[in-house]
C-alpha cells in the first residue's frame, strides 16, 4: 500500500488498484471472495457427499465383494499420492504466506512446486488406472475379477457387485482427478499473474481463494484414501 504510486497520487480514491468499485473496502472485497469460495466448497461437499453416501450404502450391501475390490488396489501408490497431496497443500499454504509477506519469488516457486506435485499425483493415478486396465478390473464387457471374498475361501466374488465397487472407484477418483486438473490450471493462471507481480500484502485474494479450493481437494482425497484403499485391507 505504501509503495504504490497510486496511493500517493490519489489518497482519497482507491488506494489499491485491485479494489473494485462495488466494494467499500479491500477487506470487504476479500471477505466476499473468500465467502464465495466457501459457499462453492459447500456445494462440493454435497457433490462428493452423494458419492460417498452411495459408496457406504453399496459397501454395506456387498461387503465381501467391496473388500475384495479394495484389497486389489495398490496401497503403496495410494499412500504415496496422499503424501504428495499433503506436500502440495503445504506449498500452497506457503505460497499464500509468501503473498501476504510480499515475497514475490517465493510465491512463484511455491506455486510451481504445487503444480509439479499435482502433476506427480495425476501421473501416479495414471499408473494405477493403467494397472487396472491391464488387470481387466475396469467395469464393462471385459471385466474379469477372479478370486474369493476375503475371509471366505468358499464364496466366489460376485462379478456384478465387484463392478459396482470399481465403478465407484473410477467415478470418485476420476472426479477427484478432474478437480486436480482444474486446480493445476487455476495455479498456472495465478503463477502467470504472480510473475507479473500482481500479488502482494495488499492483494493476494486469488492466491488465497485458489488455495482454499486446492486444500478442499486435498481433504476429499484424505477421505477417499482410507475408504477405498484401507478400511477393508486386513479382512
Amino acid at each position: 500500500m505504501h509503495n504504490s504510486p497510486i496511493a500517493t497520487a490519489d489518497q482519497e480514491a482507491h488506494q489499491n488498484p485491485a479494489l473494485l468499485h462495488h466494494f467499500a473496502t479491500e477487506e470487504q472485497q476479500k471477505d466476499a471472495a473468500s465467502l464465495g469460495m466457501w459457499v462453492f466448497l459447500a456445494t462440493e461437499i454435497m457433490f462428493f457427499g452423494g458419492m460417498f453416501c452411495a459408496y457406504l450404502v453399496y459397501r454395506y450391501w456387498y461387503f465381501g465383494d467391496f473388500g475384495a475390490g479394495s484389497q486389489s488396489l495398490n496401497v503403496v501408490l495410494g499412500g504415496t499420492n496422499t503424501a504428495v497431496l499433503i506436500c502440495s497443500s503445504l506449498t500452497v499454504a506457503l505460497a499464500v504466506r509468501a503473498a501476504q509477506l510480499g515475497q514475490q519469488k517465493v510465491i512463484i516457486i511455491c506455486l510451481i512446486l504445487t503444480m509439479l506435485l499435482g502433476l506427480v499425483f495425476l501421473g501416479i493415478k495414471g499408473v494405477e488406472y493403467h494397472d487396472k486396465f491391464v488387470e481387466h478390473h475396469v467395469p464393462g464387457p471385459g471385466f474379469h475379477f477372479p478370486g474369493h471374498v476375503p475371509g471366505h475361501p468358499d464364496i466366489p466374488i460376485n462379478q456384478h457387485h465387484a463392478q459396482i465397487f470399481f465403478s465407484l472407484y473410477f467415478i470418485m477418483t476420476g472426479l477427484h482427478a478432474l478437480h486436480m486438473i482444474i486446480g493445476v490450471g487455476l495455479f498456472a493462471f495465478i503463477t502467470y499473474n504472480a510473475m507479473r507481480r500482481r500479488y502482494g500484502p495488499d492483494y493476494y485474494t486469488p492466491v488465497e481463494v485458489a488455495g482454499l479450493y486446492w486444500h478442499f481437494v486435498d481433504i476429499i482425497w484424505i477421505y477417499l484414501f482410507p475408504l477405498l484403499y484401507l478400511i477393508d485391507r486386513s479382512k
Partner: protein
Amino acid sequence: MSEHVSSLKLYIGIWITLLIGTLVTVLVAGVNLPGPLNAVVALTIATIKATLVVLFFMHVKYAHDKITKVVIVAALFWLAILLALSMADYTTRLWT
C-alpha cells in the same frame, strides 16, 4: 478472510503431523481390528487430518467473519443428514 500471517514453524508442524497421520493410518490398516474398528480408526484419523487442514491451512481458525464458519457448519450438518438418514434407511430394511 484473514490478515493473520502464520509462522513457518506452524505450517511445517502441521505438515509433519499430516504425514505422520498418513503413515499411522496405513500401518493400522494392516492390523485386523475387531468389528468395524478398522473403519472407525481410519476415519477418525482422516477427520483429524481434515480438521487440521481446515483450521490452519485454510485459516479458518483466524477467520474474523463468523459467516464463513456458519457456511462450513451448515455444509457439514447437511452432509450428516444425508449420510445418517440414508444409512438409517438401508441398514434397517431387512428388519422384521
